[in-house]
């Protein structure tokens, strides 16, 4: 068997086997092999929200761009990575479909969804969300009653995302008993985050509260997705019915109500898609 020597004396330089035209990268510091005419291998790795560019330099452009005018944080919105792979093979599963990237974040599957508080092991059947809502008093050792508050275990946490804010939060619906209360919580959760995204806010300027979520009068409106996948406005059904069917919440721009609720896929606010 031919062997390649360990000390590299006959280490094969396979470079010479590559056609001349594709060897140029080595001599140009900044050139990316990416920028060759080999369209077949061209990969697009633009972040969400990038316009399609036809050369491969979207990656480099992205670095040089000062995103003050277009904060990466404002890239939350509709976008998913879109590959411009011209061969018939997708090289990355995430690029072709909205939704989570395979194997990202690099966490073993059994670690996911631990914080949701929902588990078949707990024998939850009381709501269609599969999560028990517990609200109990608990006597401590001395017989004094502890203050009544919903226990965390079995709390009804649902994800909530807001247009313009890249990081979602969680809301414990079992800690609320009315739409008004929920609306206040949403304001509390996102007011600061939203203000941080807005470049127009100068230091010291007062942060605007988020209002009108339920009335349709505000800049934003609260919507939800139920256990059948339908998207609806929050506030139409009795509170308890809402709690038992809600799967996740979304705060959208009031101007986008029609498109958000009509199109089956809705907006992709997932930064990770």
């Amino acid at each position, binding site marked *: 068997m031919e*062997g*390649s020597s*360990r000390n*590299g004396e006959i*280490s*094969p330089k*396979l*470079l010479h*086997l*590559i056609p001349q035209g*594709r060897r140029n*990268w*080595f001599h140009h510091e900044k050139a*990316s*092999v*990416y920028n060759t005419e*080999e369209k*077949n*291998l061209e*990969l697009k*790795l633009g972040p969400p929200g990038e316009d399609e560019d036809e050369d491969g330099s979207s*990656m*480099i452009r992205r*670095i040089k761009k000062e995103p003050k005018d277009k904060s990466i944080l404002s890239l939350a919105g509709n976008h998913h990575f879109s590959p411009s792979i011209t*061969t*018939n*093979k997708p*090289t*990355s*599963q995430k690029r072709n479909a909205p939704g989570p*990237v*395979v*194997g*990202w*974040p*690099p*966490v*073993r*599957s059994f*670690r*996911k969804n*631990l*914080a*949701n508080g929902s588990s078949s*092991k*707990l024998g939850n059947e009381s709501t269609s969300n599969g999560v028990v809502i517990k609200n109990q008093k608990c006597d*401590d*050792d001395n017989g004094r009653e502890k203050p009544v508050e919903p226990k*965390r*275990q079995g709390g009804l946490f649902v*994800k909530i*995302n807001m247009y313009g804010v*890249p*990081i*979602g939060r*969680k809301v414990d619906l079992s800690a609320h008993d009315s739409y008004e209360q929920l609306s206040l919580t949403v304001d509390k959760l996102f007011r600061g985050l939203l203000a941080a995204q807005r470049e127009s806010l100068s230091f010291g300027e007062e942060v605007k509260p988020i209002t009108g979520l339920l009335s349709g009068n505000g800049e934003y409106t609260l919507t939800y997705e139920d256990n059948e996948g339908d998207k609806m406005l929050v506030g139409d059904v009795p509170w308890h019915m809402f709690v038992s069917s809600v799967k996740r919440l979304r705060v959208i721009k009031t101007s986008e109500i029609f498109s958000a609720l009509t199109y089956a896929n809705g907006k992709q*606010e*997932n*930064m*990770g898609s």
Partner: protein
Amino acid sequence: MDLRLPSKVLEHIFSFVDSNEDRNSVSLVCKSWFETERLTRKRVFVRNCYAVTPAAVARRFPEMRSLTLKGKPHFADYNLVPDGWGGYAWPWIEAMAEKSPALEELRLKRMVVTDECLEKIAASFKEFKALVLTSCEGFSTDGLAAIAVACRNLRELELRECIVEDLGGDWLSYFPETLTSLVSLDFSCLDSEVKLSDLELLVSRSPNLKSLKLNRDVSLDALGSLLRLAPQLVELGTGSFSDKLDQEAVSKLSQAFTELKELKSLSGLWDVLPEYIPLLYSVCPGLTSLNLSYATVQMPDLVELLSRCSNLQKLWVMDLIEDKGLEAVASSCKELRELRVFPSGADVDETNVALTEQGLVSVSEACPNLESVLYFCAQFTNEALVTIARNRPNLKCVRLCVMEPFAPDHKTQQPLDEGFKAIVEGCKGLQRLSVSGLLTDKAFEYIGTHGKKLRMLSIAFAGDSDLMLHHLLSGCESLNKLEIRDCPFGDTALLENAAKLETMRSLWMSSCGVSFGACKLLSQKMPKLNVEVIDEHPLKTRPDSSPVEKIYIYRTLAGPRLDMPEFVWTIHKNPEIGVSNLAIE
């Protein structure tokens, strides 16, 4: 005059040489040392089960008593390796049953283990003592029953994060009454309920039991009675920590915990209710290892607990700990060596924003022995990385996962190149590194220049071009394992540095731009490498320029393997034959 030491003397000297690396070095000195060493090696580590054949291992080490094997590539943990790829334990067990029947210990990681394997072990190795399966799959609780019933001297049975077909909890009842040798039992990954009475009987007749890790199904009540039967435990993995107990039960449980005078390691704690945390206070001062990564406990309760753990060396926790909690860790846990912070949310958009780079900075400042870090975080800054490197030049393992791909320094919007430069430059003993966030080729130039002790490197969504890979392969002298996904490079660097690949254990690349032609070239020119192309969507014709989905390249003495599924292709060494799915046609 014969200056060679008699082999008996050599044997005696070698009996003090424990570590595998040292033994490997010893065996390279000369023929007689090689011979003596191989005849005395008891513990054999094969870190890639396809690097060598079972027969060769059995032949070389006739006195082998303990075998450790690893199968699938690391990225299999994140579902990047399709099912059926390989990593079968059977050929090894079959070979050892025939050639090394005195085998006592088998430790397998990321391998496919079937019930037949377990039955074979039970039937073939009379002195079998220890079975430790980590991230394995393919077997059911029936196989466990076979082990339980037949291995009369069993000391260790540990199932760490395995995927087991759970047919019920009966398997535990198969341990015979005569079995009293158990030292370690870990069935934390199993789903179904085991009978408490079986477990109690087993524990009560195992005076040497030091490590017990229960599954989620074991109730708090049951835990209490088990602890009373085994106060000598050094490692405890609880079951679910959430049942409602009455006063009396709580105080009995509390008492049971205070009796655990030897306890050093605590894990499990699924669903732990905040009001039960005080039950753990009595064991906190003695703990050196605490795994809270399944405990959905909020920061204030975590702080209460951790502030009592002054001897803690290893902490695994979720990002629910937040920066504030890590500050508390920094001030209380001065002995900390290893910190892992896992994300509590399932998706990128659920990341807990109250955990930032500051948390890690605090710990790096205050914990002088901190060596190993795994940190999932929404975003990071170069400044933080520079500070961490300055604080902790003794770091050996840095795995930073910025949750959002391509995220830049969130203060300056710059790539994280300078931050990672500080890490590799400052932490001269760094052996393992995972990078994330926005990174250009510069970052990899730094890593290639400074990461001289780096053995394992993981990269995702990074770099600009082939230069990135070239820097790494030509610069990192100690590089042993490299795994890359979704990076924009192609063939050139790979082919230019082909010789390097034979000095490494393995290279994984997925969703990059490597062409089929390059794979063919590499395989044909490098006989000691297996170049495997994993392709679940193959084209009818495969032009040389077509990019491949995933490649896994590893050095081997065994040649191409024969157990590949239809979606794994190897390039035949003989260019006449070309691509084959079977190694030999």
